[in-house]
């Protein structure tokens, strides 16, 4: 260890905080100047003016007013958040039937609640089986849920939301502290994975009980994200294997596909799917003389196809990086053991390759989630479109800032949680430790 050169001050005035400030903020003259400049910038963003109040004099108009007089003043004083509160159902479900049920148009919201409870229970059980939840995190989460629940609504809705949280907690406790769970842990994990697959199809069936033209808001955004990830991941892995293949025809095809897709913007692919999919795959088309009927490529299906085809090319590139990181000796050793090519890929190469690229894969999934906002080009009403629609109602004109900030917050929470979860997964699996 280095020798401690600077004696720790014993002066009673020099508390830890002062020492910390001096070391981290005012260690030298340039460092102090940077601190002052950063403070001024922070003040400008938060309070819409500089500490001395001279910035306004530069201009012939009250420019801090543009940002609502600073973020703090805007959020707590200038903004009218009633646009968000009054339209909360629209943000989450848009026209999913219905807040005001009639005989012809029955309330289908129960489908969403069933899915939510199912996912809460599964998420709780999975958390219990795979990890240990930090008590601090749990308390913070529960405290955060209080304003969220109050925002979502009173009465039945509030009770149901609380129920979902309780469901999560109960499944966690049941899975984590069940007597003898240690003995059956491997079995229980397999059961949980199976349950997730079943849950996906149950949710799919429940959602399809309602015409997809009535899907919208956060529901549509999440649907496109989840189905996009589930469909594009295997396709991406296949493309990566194809590109790494020694068969020139397959390698050429996969390379051309990946490079072509990566060179054009998603918006053009969405537009192409909007126009081409119905022309190429109409329900009454005959494929080699066989009538293919019963497949109706509605807008949601077209968007899913486009997002999947687009995302697969990027996932393929990520997985290719992982494939290159697997040492050749692994494959040779597996060959020496007499494993077939498909077994080598499935049990030796792919698990190592995918584990090595988890961070970039999750980054790709986050991109996919953010990219779902582009489906506006097809006329779908995702979360972002709802943000615009609610401000075109009388009474909420000119409230775009509030509406967009709320939507941005939802996107941010989900994307940020995904990136944090990936970091945690990375640590658990010890990527980079090898």
């Amino acid at each position, binding site marked *: 260890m280095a020798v401690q050169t600077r004696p720790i001050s014993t002066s009673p005035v020099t508390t830890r905080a002062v020492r910390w400030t001096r070391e*981290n*903020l005012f*260690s030298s003259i340039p*460092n102090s100047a*940077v*601190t002052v400049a*950063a403070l001024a*910038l*922070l003040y400008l963003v938060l309070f819409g003016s500089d500490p001395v109040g001279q910035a306004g004099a*530069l*201009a*012939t*108009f009250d*420019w801090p007013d*543009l940002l609502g007089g600073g973020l703090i003043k805007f959020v707590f004083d200038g903004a009218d958040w009633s646009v968000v509160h009054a339209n909360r159902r629209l943000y989450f479900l848009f026209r999913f039937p219905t807040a005001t049920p009639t005989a012809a148009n029955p309330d289908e919201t129960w489908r969403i609640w069933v899915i939510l409870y199912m996912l809460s229970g599964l998420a709780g059980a999975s958390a219990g089986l795979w990890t240990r939840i930090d008590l601090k995190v749990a308390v913070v989460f529960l405290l955060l849920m209080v304003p969220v629940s109050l925002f979502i609504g009173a009465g039945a809705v509030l009770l149901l939301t609380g129920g979902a949280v309780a469901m999560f907690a109960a499944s966690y406790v049941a899975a984590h502290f069940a007597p003898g769970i240690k003995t059956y842990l491997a079995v229980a994990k397999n059961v949980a994975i199976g349950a997730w697959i079943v849950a996906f199809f149950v949710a799919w069936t429940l959602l399809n009980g309602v015409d997809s033209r009535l899907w919208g808001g956060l529901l549509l955004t999440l649907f496109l994200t989840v189905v996009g990830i589930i469909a594009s991941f295997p396709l991406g892995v296949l493309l990566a294997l194809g590109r790494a293949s020694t*068969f*020139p*025809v*397959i390698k050429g*095809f996969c390379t051309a596909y990946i490079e*072509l897709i*990566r*060179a*054009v*913007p*998603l*918006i*053009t692919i969405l*537009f192409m799917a909007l*126009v*081409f999919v119905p*022309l*190429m*795959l*109409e329900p009454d*088309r005959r*494929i*080699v*003389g066989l009538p293919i009927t019963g497949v109706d490529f509605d807008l949601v299906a077209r968007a899913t196809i486009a997002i999947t085809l687009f995302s697969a090319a990027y996932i393929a590139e990520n997985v290719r990086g992982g494939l290159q990181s697997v040492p050749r000796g692994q494959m040779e050793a597996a*060959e020496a053991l007499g494993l*077939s*090519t498909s077994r080598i890929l499935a049990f030796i190469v792919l698990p190592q390759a995918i584990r090595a690229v988890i961070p970039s894969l999750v980054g790709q999934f986050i991109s996919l989630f*953010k*990219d779902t*906002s*582009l489906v*506006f*080009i097809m006329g779908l009403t995702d979360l972002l479109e709802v*943000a*615009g629609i609610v401000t075109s109602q009388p009474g909420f004109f000119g409230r*775009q*800032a509030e509406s*967009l*900030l709320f939507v*941005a917050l939802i*996107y*941010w929470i989900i*994307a*940020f949680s995904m*990136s944090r979860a990936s970091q945690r997964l990375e640590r658990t699996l010890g990527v980079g430790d090898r």
Partner: protein
Amino acid sequence: MAAANQPSPSHPADSLMGLAGPRVLRLLIAAVIAIVGLVAALVLPLAFVLIAACGLAIVTLASRNARLQRYAFQAAFAAVIILVGRVLVSNLTTELDKTNLESLPFVDLSGSFPFIDFSMDFLDRRAGFGLPETSFGQEYTENNSYGDAYLAGLLNTLRVAIIGIFLASIVGLAAGVARLSNNWLLSKLATVYVETFRNVPLLVQLIFWYTAVILKLPKIQDDASFLNVILISNRSVAVPGMNTSDGFGLWLLLLLAVAAISIAVWYLRNQSQETTGKPSYPAWSAAGVFVVLGGATFLLTGSPMTFELPELIGRSHEGGLQVTPEFTALLLGLTLYTGAFIAEVVRGSIQAISKGQTEAASALGLNGFQRLRLVILPQALSIMIPPLTNQYLNLAKNSSLGVAVAFPDLFRVTKITINQSGQTVPMILLVMVTYLAISMLISLIMNVLNSRVRIRTR
């Protein structure tokens, strides 16, 4: 199986489908078979292609000959791809024939060689729609052709992409370095910036800047400005610009020559610095030569460029450089969004440089800025360029989101053209090929740059 993959020269699997002979001859036969097969798969009725694909699949599964298996499997794959492609394209053309639209450009076997009709005649027709802005001095009115409109869109895309790449690099470099600063407040501010802008979709940010900030700027008649130099309104933002007169072209040519001289000076001084070991300030000397000679030629050609402040005349900004709210919103959104990603690239690259480099540089007595400029950044640059290329490509492609704020870029012009002319298929193919070309151009430039900055290891 492993043994079958490595046939000895005398192994029967070494002959192509049982054919023996010299290697060149076998390759020739393989090529002829491949071409005949390809043409047959493209021309024969679909049922034959399907039967061929099934036959090849059966050969793949049943054959004991590894090499034959290889060929049969690839041929089957190609047959299936061609089959699917032909079904999709024939469905498309049938459907387009019904709607009486041109289905160009597709293979037309009834036509003359080479069976592909690439005529895009509609591009010469009158467009009939105006565009609110053009770039690089291009003149465009609604009486121009669709082709001119497309060119205007392309130039608008290029303008926003070039300026955006420049600004995003600066923002990203600053934020990336700031995140690693030992000033706690600065590094936390940079972290908040990066984490906020990276995790919100670009489209949300674009629409926010456009509807919630830029369209809420003061009205043009309010005469709002910063120090009367930057004029601001919700109709246009005007910044000081340059006014050129006769002799500008000549000066520009002379300036190129001056630049060449400066580079020569830099090179020579650098050489002398490397041979003698004495500091001879190559960058400063080159800059001095450039400023002095550039100024002299400027005066010699009769000061062909004047500085011009914008002013408010009636209800519009005149003079200077004016930008529309759409352009401002798109540029702001692209810069801040891509800047956050570039910041992460910069941070990662700097962190990848071993700590010993910093310590060695400190031991040599370099200060913080010198360490960064002379030791860390040159090394980080070579790690940085491939991921930076991806970010530049993303920025260029993301400029197509300008359609959401009504910026007349390539994609928006394409959409309008499709709505007006009904030429869906050719226009979609054209716009994809154009984006492909832009992406390839950026990759090419960055690859050249990459080979220049790569550290030569011994």
